[in-house]
């Protein structure tokens, strides 16, 4: 019996190897070999943690990040943060592995070991990318008061942690303006991921933007209560387009892929159908390509790379915003509206968006970020 088990194990391993070998072995995947460093090193040896953390200026400065489960090549949040760190490294002549690096988390259990490992390697500034890392950042920040940390998309209150969030409501406001100008049916939709304060910022900003242009426009709002169920996104989009909406803004991760699928399907069946999707987090232009047409009207782009570079630069110059909560918005260049789809995103829309953008930056208009603020905003229209 035991032999059989061993044999089985061997067969399984052999199968993995054989199947694994089928993949093309372009070694362009930037540094998959480094991924495991973080998770394999035990968290116990904290004896060396002070080493190298006292110098914070000049070329000795080093910066690293811990990804959330998405991984460093998720074409979204983590990737953007990593690009920011790479750009920062290049700018300052740092070397990969000593000057800047990342640690990949396969699941939530990897967060703490990853942080500890990077602390032990003597990095001066360590980013936790995503709100999921909040607890881990809180804990390591307390244990390592000499090291600087930064959390993206959430707030940790500690003197050595800089919290960075984005003014998603501002970008969503502009997405709303674009949607309002594009709609012909005076009916637009919003698909949310999981109901949460973060996604509420997208929703209320979007609604405010739409209603600012034309209060008559109806906004259909639905949450998928998931960030991964594409089928749900598909059904919601189907329902919204069927009941008259022609522009849908999604803030729902992979659920949004279903929205794109539905829009593309409609265009394929009827090339004249007037359906549009507004992407989120990064420019989702490529996602909307359907034959000669593209259903991506625009995207609300969150520049995590800009945020990372900003914090890293300040830390390097001895101006680390520890204990502060930075809210990066349009004026910081951390939020923008994509104009890749020139055919759909006309000059008229671009001009109007620029106009509202100026009002937001000047403070003439304040994009609401909660249900209550939205109500007040709509009352004052």
């Amino acid at each position, binding site marked *: 019996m035991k032999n059989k088990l061993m044999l089985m194990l061997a067969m399984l391993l052999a199968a993995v190897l054989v199947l694994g070998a089928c993949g093309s072995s372009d070694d362009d*995947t930037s540094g998959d070999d480094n991924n495991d460093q973080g998770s394999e090193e035990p968290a116990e040896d904290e004896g060396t943690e002070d080493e190298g953390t006292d110098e914070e200026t000049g070329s000795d400065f080093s910066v690293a990040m811990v990804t959330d489960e998405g991984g460093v090549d998720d*074409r979204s949040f983590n990737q953007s943060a990593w690009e920011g760190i790479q750009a920062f490294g290049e700018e300052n002549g740092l070397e990969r592995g000593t000057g800047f690096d990342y640690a990949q988390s396969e699941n939530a259990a990897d967060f703490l070991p990853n942080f500890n490992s990077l602390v032990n390697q003597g990095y001066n500034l360590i980013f936790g990318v995503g709100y999921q890392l909040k607890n881990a950042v809180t804990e390591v920040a307390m244990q390592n008061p000499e090291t600087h940390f930064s959390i993206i998309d959430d707030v940790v209150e500690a003197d050595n942690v800089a919290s960075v969030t984005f003014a998603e409501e501002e970008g969503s406001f502009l997405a709303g303006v674009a949607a309002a100008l594009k709609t012909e049916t005076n009916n637009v939709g919003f698909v949310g991921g999981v109901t949460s304060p973060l996604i509420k910022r997208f929703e209320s900003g979007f609604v405010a933007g739409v209603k600012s242009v034309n209060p008559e426009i109806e906004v259909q709002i639905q949450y998928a209560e998931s960030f991964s169920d594409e089928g749900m996104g598909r059904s919601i989009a189907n*329902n919204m387009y069927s009941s008259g909406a022609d522009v849908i803004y999604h803030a729902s991760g992979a659920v949004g892929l279903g929205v794109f699928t539905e829009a593309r399907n409609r265009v394929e069946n009827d090339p004249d159908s007037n359906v549009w999707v507004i992407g989120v987090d990064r420019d989702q232009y490529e996602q909307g390509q359907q034959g000669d047409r593209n259903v991506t009207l625009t995207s609300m782009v969150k520049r995590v790379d800009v945020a990372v570079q900003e914090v890293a630069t300040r830390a390097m110059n001895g101006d680390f915003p520890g204990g502060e909560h930075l809210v990066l918005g349009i004026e910081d260049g951390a939020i923008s509206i994509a104009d890749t789809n020139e055919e759909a995103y006309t000059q008229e829309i671009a001009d109007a968006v620029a106009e509202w953008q100026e009002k937001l930056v000047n403070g003439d208009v304040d994009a609401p970020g909660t249900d209550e603020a939205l109500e007040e905003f709509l009352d004052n229209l």
Partner: protein
Amino acid sequence: MEFIDQLVAMMPMVLFYSAPLIFTAIGGVFSERSGVVNIGLEGLMVIGAFSGIVFNIFFADTLGAATPWLSLVAGAIAAGIFSIMHAVAAVSFRANQVVSGVAINMMAVGLGVFLTREIFGRGQTDSITQPFYTETIPFLSEIPIIGDMFFNGVYITSYIAIGVAVLAWFVLYKTTFGLRLRAVGEHPMAADTNGINVTKMRYIAVILSGLLAGLGGATYALTISLSFAGSTISGQGFMSLAAVIFGKWHPLGALGAAVFFGFAQALSVVGNNFDFLSEVPSVYLVILPYVLTVLALAGFIGRAEAPKANGEPYIKGSR
């Protein structure tokens, strides 16, 4: 909108949502009817989805309009091959079938993500250019109400899924092969005494389940997500497994259960359009599919009877 209009609008959603579940659940029925528990359906769907998408991306230019069909085949074959591992472990080596199935699930996701990174250099593939599109069937779609419900804006794959379910019923209950397959799952020793090769039958059943689960995964990828990432298949395989049990290990029962899940999901989306549901907070509608499943399993279908030898390895000569 009128009640009936809403129902009409819901049907295409129900059909596209349940098609992958039907394929996979029928696969599960084959495997479990032969006495091999297949928890690995989820993983086999992942392999199907991954292979279907990758095939589609690489061959879209050369194959043109035939690409989605061949992608389905590619997904099915890849998952069929992958399922051999489960067959070897569970049938030949009499390993614990649940453990082996879990291993399949974990390996499939890992392998899918790993290969995606190797091939595309990132964690998500591009979106495919040759997916399936919904179709409107001429003539039939002009029948009032029914035409709009079933023949307007529907995927061909949904019809195929229903066809496969009926075919599976025919094979399992009207052919010698089906009788043998069921016999092996109920009482392998008796079957063996009658000269049926238990091992062979179980291998065939597990590979069939792999082919069908791969078909299900590929269908999901080619109709709904249009790209592959680690989270593309998230729970559909387990939903299918639930459909197998819910459907009492019967192909048509599994079909009904899968459609029921699709219906519950669609209801959670369009529910607020119904007048009598418009006041219900949407969160209750979202949890509806799960609540209905629990209720149905607990109350309405009575005792679910699994094939007698389900999950037990057959050891020749033992009593």
